[in-house]
């Protein structure tokens, strides 16, 4: 039983799918946001795995950027969530539907 | 023939636009009105002057040709202006109707007159450009330029139901315009000439006509596109509604001139360029045109609202134009052009007078009118003349008569039996025309009208209403008495550019 690229990619795929599923399932904005982070991480696995198996550096460097960007995104996102919570006293997505139709 | 000191054609388009711009930039009302006279007058003067300079036997040649690059030469688009025997009469008609409509608008005292005049001037520029364009792209372009102010003017200054009417009109016309635009682009694409220039296209297609199936598709697009624009039955319902709601000058320009776009397009572009396609569609077109003449004719009989009735009547009459086109011959097309000129003049006259009637009766409902002739005999005389002209009675409507006669001749040549329903339309239009005259002007005044009269003076047609009417009437009668003034060059042009059409017709007849 050897571990090949296939396994890494499937792991990434499964995590990506779980993340996606979580986004669809959860109503708490914070958890949704966590799931999104998970999806990003799943993508990084793909990059790292390919980088390793293809012998090129680009994927790894890309991951570096992704982590940076994700951190910034989280900061901004959480700031928005906090501000929203302060105004609306909820972060449940099904209650955040003042904008519709 | 091209040694004019300035490019008058461009000037005739640019003057109204420039005046409109000046008004838009905030000219005071007093000056705006003075300038508007210039804006409407110059094109008319130019149109008449060019007409007087126009060669008698131009053949396929265009006179007064000029060309300007607008940046799309790469696509074969160039602002090329010029007039041939087909467009000259219409160009002149546009100038004259524009002048009349403009004069009428200036005196109308509409609310926010400046903006009204501005939009009308833009519309007028579009009309002049439409007939002066050799480039079919600009032909379309100018049409739309004229169309859009229509919508706004109907919406702002319109009468009953203006919102709905404006909307319906615009959507209908957009559908028509889009179909015809695609048709025109298709000609551009499929001709292989890679040019929108009508002359280039014609030369190219004369040598290498498109495949028959392509032609059929293109003509279908153009026919239905133009058909919607010209209110071909059953795509006409926007027209009476729109004209019923539109302010008078807009109805005049739209029904009189703008609407000729489609018929002109069929005569000038569709028939010569895609004759085989025309062959395929001609029977259908003829049937629909008969729908215009008979069905709309009868519907006109049922109208109580005077302006609606005039609107329906104008819809009915364009059926003759389509019928002429459907004959696929020099005769039919020539008749259609003659008829277009006549129809443009007479229908705009009718709309003008209808509004003048409205000013005096306060209603368009014919059941509430009556006996206006006693108060306004001159108006009655003008209206009667206009009605008689529009029903093609020789005399005031001699030009209409020539047009109709030529079309009937062509129709008989094309499909003998069809002449019967076609001519029947003449009877129908006489019925509703005279009925309207009778109801509005003759007989004793109705109670409603008497109520309306109380406390106000019903004056006769004022001079500033009279002058535009006279302009139209004199042109109409003059051309009617001496139709050769337009028919000679028209015939020469048609003979020169219709060989393909005629050959095809003869070929089929020979089978």
């Amino acid at each position: 039983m050897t571990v090949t690229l296939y396994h890494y990619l499937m792991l990434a795929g499964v995590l990506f799918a779980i993340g996606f599923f979580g986004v669809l399932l959860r109503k708490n904005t914070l958890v949704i946001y966590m799931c999104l982070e998970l999806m990003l991480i799943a993508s990084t696995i793909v990059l790292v795995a390919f980088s390793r198996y293809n012998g090129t550096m680009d994927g790894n460097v890309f991951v570096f950027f992704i982590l940076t960007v994700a951190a910034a995104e989280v900061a901004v996102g959480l700031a928005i969530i906090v501000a929203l919570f302060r105004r609306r006293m909820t972060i449940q997505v099904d209650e955040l539907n003042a904008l519709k139709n | 023939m091209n040694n004019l000191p300035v490019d008058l054609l461009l000037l005739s388009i640019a003057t109204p636009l420039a005046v409109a711009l000046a008004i838009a930039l905030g000219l005071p009302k007093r000056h705006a009105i003075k300038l508007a006279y210039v804006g409407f007058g110059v094109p008319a003067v130019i149109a008449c002057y060019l007409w007087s300079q126009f060669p008698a036997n131009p053949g396929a040649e265009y006179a007064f040709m000029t060309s300007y690059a607008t940046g799309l030469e790469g696509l074969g688009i160039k602002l090329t202006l010029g007039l041939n025997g087909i467009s000259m009469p219409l160009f002149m008609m546009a100038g004259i109707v524009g002048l009349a409509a403009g004069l009428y608008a200036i005196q109308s005292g509409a609310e926010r007159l400046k903006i009204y005049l501005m939009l009308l001037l833009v519309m007028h520029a579009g009309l002049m450009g439409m007939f002066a364009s050799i480039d079919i792209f600009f032909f379309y372009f100018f049409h739309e330029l004229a169309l859009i102010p229509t919508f706004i003017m109907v919406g702002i200054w319109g009468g009953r139901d203006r919102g709905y009417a404006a909307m319906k009109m615009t959507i209908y016309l957009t559908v028509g315009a889009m179909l015809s635009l695609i048709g025109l682009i298709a000609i551009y694409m499929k001709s292989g000439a890679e040019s929108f220039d009508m002359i280039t296209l014609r030369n190219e297609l004369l040598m290498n006509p498109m495949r028959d199936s392509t032609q059929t598709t293109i003509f279908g697009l153009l026919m239905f596109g133009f058909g919607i624009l010209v209110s071909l039955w059953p795509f006409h319902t926007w027209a009476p509604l729109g004209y019923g709601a539109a302010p008078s000058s807009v109805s005049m320009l739209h029904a009189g001139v703008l609407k000729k776009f489609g018929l002109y397009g069929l005569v000038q572009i569709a028939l010569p360029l895609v004759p085989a396609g025309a062959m395929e569609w001609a029977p259908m077109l003829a049937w629909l045109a008969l729908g215009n003449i008979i069905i709309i004719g009868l519907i006109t009989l049922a109208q109580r609202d005077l302006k609606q009735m005039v609107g329906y009547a104008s819809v009915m009459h364009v059926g003759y134009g389509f019928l002429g086109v459907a004959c696929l011959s020099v005769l039919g097309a020539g008749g259609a052009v003659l008829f277009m000129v006549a129809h443009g003049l007479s229908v705009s006259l009718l709309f003008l007078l209808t509004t003048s009637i409205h000013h005096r009766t306060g209603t368009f409902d014919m059941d509430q009118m009556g006996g206006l002739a006693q108060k306004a005999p001159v108006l009655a005389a003008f209206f009667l003349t206009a009605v008689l002209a529009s029903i093609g009675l020789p005399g005031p409507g001699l030009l209409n008569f020539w047009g109709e006669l030529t079309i009937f001749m062509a129709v008989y040549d094309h499909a003998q039996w069809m002449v019967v329903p076609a001519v029947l339309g003449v009877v129908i239009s006489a019925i509703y025309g005279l009925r309207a005259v009778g109801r509005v002007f003759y007989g004793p005044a109705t109670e409603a009208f008497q109520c309306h009269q109380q406390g106000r003076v019903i004056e006769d047609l004022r001079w500033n209403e009279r002058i535009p009417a006279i302009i139209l009437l004199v042109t109409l009668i003059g051309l009617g008495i001496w139709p050769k003034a337009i028919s000679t060059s028209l015939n020469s042009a048609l003979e020169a550019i219709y060989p393909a059409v005629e050959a095809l017709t003869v070929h089929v007849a020979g089978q």
Partner: protein
Amino acid sequence: MFATIFYLFAFLSVGSALAMVFNRNTVHSAMFLLLSLVGVAGVFALLDTGFLALLLIFVYAGAVVALFLFIVMLLDMQGGERKPFRPAAIAAGVVTAGLLVVGLVSFSGAVQALHAPEAASVLPVGVNLKHYANQLFTTYLLPVQVVGFLLLIAMLGVIVLSKRFEGLEDIK
């Protein structure tokens, strides 16, 4: 041995991810996210990129998850989701899950069709930390600069969205 470690990390990350998704407590979810990230970091390490594994832990565990927890605490909503799942939502979830599984199967097929090289035959480039530096300061210099600006506007954004301003008393 290698495989066992891989599966350990893999199951750790997948299991924690599932736990994160299905746990109703937001704090627990955040913790499971952290756990899942640890698993991923392990996988990274197996892929000879220890640097990235460390970075992942630092950035995510040290910053992101901490931030999440901080916010959860701040907003005081450990209570999790109050409402039970509605049947429609469950049905949607099942369908969604089904679609995702189908997607995964398809993905698996596609990946299998790819003739992957053997790991042993390729030089592990990610091991050498110097490579990262070289790349970042030569080839990827411009993106690095851009990321700098990105961080700057993110910072400004957080300030704008959170700071108390004079005259903006409406933030409770």
